[in-house]
């Protein structure tokens, strides 16, 4: 018991540290997509719904399974789809119709 509690605690603490570190220095441009991406990740709660289903053996259990599955699936599917849609819009410039508006525009600014 303590063995697995310690394992879970260690996993929790280390994951918190990873979470803090992975997010630092996000440009403000991407804060909204980032929020959405993190939102999609907590859709992993659907794995919990699966575990609930595996343990369900009563009508209450089935009902809770249904509710948990519906909520979790909305989160996970919706989360990834909307993030992808949002990010699909962040495009590189089209192949330039004339060389003047070439890709280097952003880099060039500092010296204009």
């Amino acid at each position, binding site marked *: 018991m303590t063995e697995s509690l310690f394992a879970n605690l260690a996993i*929790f603490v280390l994951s918190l540290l990873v979470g803090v570190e992975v997010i630092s220095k*996000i*440009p403000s441009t*991407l804060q909204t*997509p980032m929020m959405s991406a*993190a939102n999609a990740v907590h859709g992993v709660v659907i*794995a919990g719904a*699966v575990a609930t289903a595996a343990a369900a053996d009563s009508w209450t259990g089935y009902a809770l399974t249904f509710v948990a599955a519906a909520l979790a699936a909305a989160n996970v599917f919706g989360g990834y789809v909307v993030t992808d849609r949002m990010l699909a819009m962040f495009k590189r410039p089209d192949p330039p119709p004339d060389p003047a508006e070439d890709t280097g525009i952003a880099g060039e600014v500092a010296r204009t």
Partner: protein
Amino acid sequence: MTDLAFLVGVTYLIAATLFVVGLHKMRAPSTARRGNRISAVGMVIAVGSTVTFALIDTGGDVLAWTALVLGAGVGASFGVRRSSTVKMTDIPQLISVFNAVGGGAAATIAIADFLHYRTGDSPPLTVSIPVVFGVLIGSLTFSGSLIAAGKLQGLIPGQPIVFPGARVLNLGVAGVAAGAGVLAIVTSSHIEWLLVLLVGASILGILMVLPIGGADAPVIVSLLNAFTGLAVAMAGFALDNQALIIAGALVGAAGTILTLEMAKVMNRSVPSIVLGGFGTSDTATDTPVDGQDLNDVRQLTADDVALQLAYAHQVLIVPGYGLAAAQAQHEVAELAKLLTAHGVKVRYAIHPVAGRMPGQMNVLLAEADVPYTQMLQLDEANTAFDTCDVALVIGANDVCNPDAREPGNAVSGMPILDADHAKSVVVIKRSMNSGYAGVSNPLFTDPKTGMFFSDAKKGLAEIVVATKTYVAA
């Protein structure tokens, strides 16, 4: 731990790595989309191995699996449909809805786990404690997120909703919820206390978000995102499922940092937002604080603006909240394309907090097919203003208020876009009303500034028409 469970654990670690790699790649626009997909692969692995394990290990009950599949079908179709059709300006409220369902799912799972023990022995503390926290955070997030979504969508008034005695009510409900939580742990087999906790926490969620102004809602959405992560991690402790613990903690921590960053760029503090201390609202614009005088102002027509733009070499567009409110992103992009084709160098100067959500302008403009290399961040933009002929300010106000450089007003100290360094300035907005911060803006009365009073969408459409005649000529 069986060998099978060990294997499942290993797949969870693989999934965790993919989540982290995915989030890491979100740091740059060029890799962000791939990052999201890598994270999705991790999700498929985590869920797939959980299903496989459940099928092999417990076999399970046909009815339960049916409930799972039906539920997942309903949820997935709702999620996918809403996500594929949502307007880009409505994304914050959709994220908020997903926080709600995520938190709700975590609470439901925690309750189910508790009930499951109840039929056998009473659950040990290592289960009942995380169950109680899961229910508490999950249901608070559920109701709070729905309210936040309602505010953002305009279904619930954006003003802070406050009423006398709110503080006493808050404390009372919090006390009841806390008591119920403790009793649920102590008695450990009375589901009733858990239900009291559920209701109490849900009310608390509502009470927490109602007093928050609509403009602060994005910060609250981000905070509730972190909460959902924590609720999921708690459910993971209760179920002894490491995928939930890892992903939940990851989002909990990342969401917290993101929330702090968002609040920082907005000059707000998270505690003051949550405690409803300020109660600043979106509606500051309705009450012009100062009577800025129309006499000091040089007014322009669509035609004037078009002429000025067509003969400029370099134009910097400063989009603000008004552009988003008017949904004028496509019009501005069209104007920019027209000018670019005519040989004018057009770029966008984007302030981190332009609009009502960090990065909102970038998302909006991206929607209108503006390449991200044309969107200049604050520093780049401020270098560019020095050599630019026209700064075209559209529905923006606070983000280019030169008074921010002076002390003693509501925007003091906020870094701003130096639109006043451009050779000339054109501002499109509907009136002399102030913006979010409710302060007057000397830029509008600057002699080199011309004002074009119009709704952003309508005004830009007129300018496009007018520009076409100059460009064709």
